[in-house]
């Protein structure tokens, strides 16, 4: 298997203008992934599928990720003049990262028996611009998985042949796998509520409800 850095440089030379970024995975598996820009996602995916050294002909898994708006705090050392003396002072710098939705694809090669190569795509935001290019025309197996992502996360895949809900019914309005999804309050009774269930008990019965 070619290292991801090499795959990245090969894509960059094959597809001019492609913006790629390697997203590191700190866990022991170390499965780093490749963030792909939406405009060039289809040619990049086509390259990964057809390149004789890669031949990633099988998309084993496509899934969604929801990233909420995040406030990042950073400690920055700044030189400042305090009481006429220049000192290095630590300042907390806060930056806001707007939320987005992500689609992640795990690609393998049946022909060359290697993989996975993981590619990601990001939407502009979580609310009104949630379009991503569909990779179903390249890997037929993505069809139902992209429908599932649409159903549970609300990502709209352009050029998908049949983008409908797959698990929930058509009139359903919510996206249940989003982190800000609010479940219908159908709590009734739990013999020993604890943790999350205890919170739901309190929400349903009022704050004085006991465990």
């Amino acid at each position, binding site marked *: 298997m070619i290292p991801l850095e090499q795959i990245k440089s090969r894509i960059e030379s094959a597809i001019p203008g492609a913006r790629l970024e390697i997203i590191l995975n700190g866990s022991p598996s170390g499965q780093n992934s490749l963030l792909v820009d939406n405009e060039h996602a289809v040619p990049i995916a086509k390259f990964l599928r057809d390149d004789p050294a890669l031949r990633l002909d099988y998309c084993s898994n496509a899934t969604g990720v929801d990233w909420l708006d995040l406030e990042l705090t950073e400690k920055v050392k700044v030189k400042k003049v305090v009481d006429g003396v220049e000192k290095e002072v630590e300042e907390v710098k806060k930056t806001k990262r707007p939320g987005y939705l992500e689609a992640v694809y795990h690609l393998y090669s049946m022909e060359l028996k290697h993989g996975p190569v993981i590619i990601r795509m990001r939407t502009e935001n979580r609310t009104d611009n949630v379009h991503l290019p569909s990779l179903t025309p390249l890997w037929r197996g993505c069809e139902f998985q992209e429908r599932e992502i649409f159903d549970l996360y609300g990502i709209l895949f352009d050029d998908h042949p049949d983008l409908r809900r797959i*698990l*929930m*019914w*058509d*009139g*359903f*309005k*919510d996206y*249940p796998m989003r982190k800000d*999804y609010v*479940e*219908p309050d*159908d709590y*009734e*009774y739990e013999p020993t509520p604890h943790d*999350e*269930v205890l919170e739901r008990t309190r929400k349903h019965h009022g704050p004085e409800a*006991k465990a």
Partner: protein
Amino acid sequence: MDEGLRSELQKQGIFTTTLEEVYNWGRKNSVWPLSFGLACCAIEMIATTMARYDLARFGAEVFRPSPRQADLMIVAGTVTKKMAPQVVRLFNQMPEPKYVIAMGACAISGGPFKQGYNVLKGIDRYIPVDVHIPGCPPRPEALIHAFMTLQKKIDEQKLTGVNRPRHLNAEAPSEFPVPQFGEHDLVPPNNPDVWQAPSLIRHA
């Protein structure tokens, strides 16, 4: 009739019975289930009907593919919210007298998926259930036990009076409202005539 007199007469070769007994005896020994399964519990249900456990001993070997020919609905498996209207509709299409066995943790309460957004927390929210069996899945013996419990229940039914079975009571409903797909949940979330949330009273 007095039990002692009855057995005495039986020894003399005179067999006595009541219309109620014959009626219940006939019904309980020929309960035809609907061949209908939702999840892994259905595999146990299938095993129950096969040679090793042999549900035919209880007169229930004829699984009917049409609800119009079935007497018993075995709700075997997880009822998702998307599937619930179809389950209720199937039950509505069965002719009276009809019975329901809720088989397994999912069918009785939602089971391991109870906290999920897409699973109905028990089929008894929409249709009246005669026998609940816990288990994940229940063993075939448990289903047979449920079946015997149902037979006992049928056998003890009185044909007249306030507690007469649904099919002999013209006012009792035979069809139950089918829930609609709402924007966030099923509408209504339960049938209040059939099921109400239990209220828990805790004593300090």
